[in-house]
């Protein structure tokens, strides 16, 4: 009698092909940078600066994996990022305890996400176009209400929450640990929780999901809400790290975060996605930001290489197959 293999290797590769592909791009990029500038690349402070940036991106990118898997997209997260940080900074300036200000910021993100989702779902609007509108709407509001001025929170590091959220443990930024916990939570939510499974179903075949009694609209609104919460956390972490809220905050992350989702192996068509792959996608983007300069090239090459790697990643992921119908 043939012994039954518990997890046949081809099945493992089939199930995790996209995440493994993203890991491949990440390792390849690291190798190229290492060969290009071995001395610079071996310096720990270079990696430490990436560890400061990566958690912020992770908080934004992982919820976007959920949303893209559900068959939608959101561009407004880059402004929600700024709005939540603004609410956070404003409340602290008004004398509210930073802990409650942080909670209010998270609620702002959730509320904006849910509102954007509801407008798109009930209005039957294109999520790409509608969220683009919200992106400008909120950003415009921020410019008007702040008069394009930033808010500085110089004493924020005296509060107990500061070292807990963005302090350092043995030289490692604490936000890396928070991002790690967020990834583990999101992984199980995506792959082992009813919500994550319904996100897959809705993105794969909305009609079938509805026929099986899944509340498609509610699932999509929750996914938008999750994106809003992730963006809010990222925005407030940035404000804590820099001690400042500035009205353009988050705008630069718009395309980088979306690039990380797709480099990470989540296809645009919905139904499948990978949280693990997205982490490597974030890694690629974060290292690209500093790697180009580190190997001695001008910073002006950064966008060129970002574009190149997005195209190469898409072509690579295509090897894993087209959409199955």
């Amino acid at each position, binding site marked *: 009698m043939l012994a039954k293999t518990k997890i046949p290797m081809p*099945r493992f590769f089939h*199930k995790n092909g996209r995440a493994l592909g993203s890991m491949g791009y990440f390792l390849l990029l690291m190798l190229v940078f290492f060969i290009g500038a071995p001395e610079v690349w071996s310096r720990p402070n270079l990696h430490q600066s990436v560890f400061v940036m990566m958690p912020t991106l992770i908080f934004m990118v992982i919820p976007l994996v959920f949303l893209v898997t559900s068959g939608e997209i959101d561009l407004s997260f880059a402004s929600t990022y700024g709005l939540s940080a603004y609410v956070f900074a404003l409340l602290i300036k008004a004398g509210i305890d930073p802990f409650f200000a942080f909670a209010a910021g998270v609620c702002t993100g959730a509320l904006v996400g849910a509102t954007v989702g509801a407008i798109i779902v009930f209005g039957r609007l294109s999520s790409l176009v509608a969220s683009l509108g919200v992106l400008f709407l909120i950003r415009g509001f921020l410019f008007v209400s702040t008069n394009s001025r930033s808010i500085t929170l110089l004493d924020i590091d005296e509060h107990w929450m500061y070292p807990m959220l963005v302090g350092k443990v043995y030289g490692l930024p604490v936000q890396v640990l928070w991002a790690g916990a967020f990834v583990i939570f999101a992984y*199980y939510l995506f792959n*082992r*929780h*009813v*919500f994550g*499974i*319904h996100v*897959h*179903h809705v993105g*794969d*075949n909305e*009609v*079938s*999901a*509805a*026929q*099986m*009694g*899944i*509340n498609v609209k509610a699932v999509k609104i929750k996914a938008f809400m999750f994106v809003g919460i992730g963006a809010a956390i990222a925005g407030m972490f940035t404000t804590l790290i820099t001690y400042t809220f500035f009205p353009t905050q988050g705008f630069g992350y718009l395309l980088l975060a979306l690039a990380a989702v797709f480099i990470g192996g989540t296809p645009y068509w919905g*139904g*499948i996605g990978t949280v693990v792959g997205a982490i490597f996608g974030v890694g690629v983007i974060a290292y690209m930001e500093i790697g180009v300069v580190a190997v001695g090239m001008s910073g002006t090459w950064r966008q060129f290489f970002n574009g190149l790697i997005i195209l190469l990643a898409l072509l690579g992921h295509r090897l894993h197959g087209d*959409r*199955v*119908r």
Partner: protein
Amino acid sequence: MRSIIELKNVSKRFAGIKALNDVSIKISAGEVVGLIGDNGAGKSTLIKTLVGVHAPDSGSIEIRGDHVEGWNALKARNAGIETVFQDKALCPQQSIVWNIFMGKELTFPFGFVRQKEQVKIANRLIREIGLTSELIDAEAPVGNLSGGERQGVAIARAIFNEAELIVLDEPTNNLSLNETQKVFDFVGNVKNSGRSVLFIGHNIYHVYDISDRFIILDRGEVIHRLNKQEVSSAEKLMKIMRDTIKGH
């Protein structure tokens, strides 16, 4: 016989066109009802209204004698009505097990899914039905399966939920003879276990063989209700259908 579901004077319009007009049907426990009609007769609309996918514009729905409000797909499934849709209602990029438990996942507290248990049950169900190759296991994506195998997954979903009424919408379309026989065996088993089936089909011979009584639909209206004793053969059933549709 005890009623499972009763639609009373149900009407449904799409963009001003009447898809169902004052339709009343009742399905009781332990019977196999054949629903027949030409293309555009309103069969699919009637099925989708019966299983909660469409909300009726007017009329009422009773489950086991009790009037229900806000009828929807989830309420229908919770009331013990499962459907094998014509398009099979599957998500091809997802695994067989996720498709079988779609919308009715087995969960721990806080909504986390009992995946191992689901896989075990799904493997047993697909073997029971026998439409899927022995080489396929429940964690394989549905997109890799043939049409007959996909039908097997859709049927497995209906079996798992131990529905009291199973609605089969054109279940033998594009199936081989062997696969069709397996669907017939399945219907027989459901009936023997005291449950009911609403069988919709284009093939009058299939519908005749399997059903205890027939409902003929034309242009959104019920034009005939016949018991099997009243119709001696599939040819006679076809003649009745043709004659009445012509004169209607």
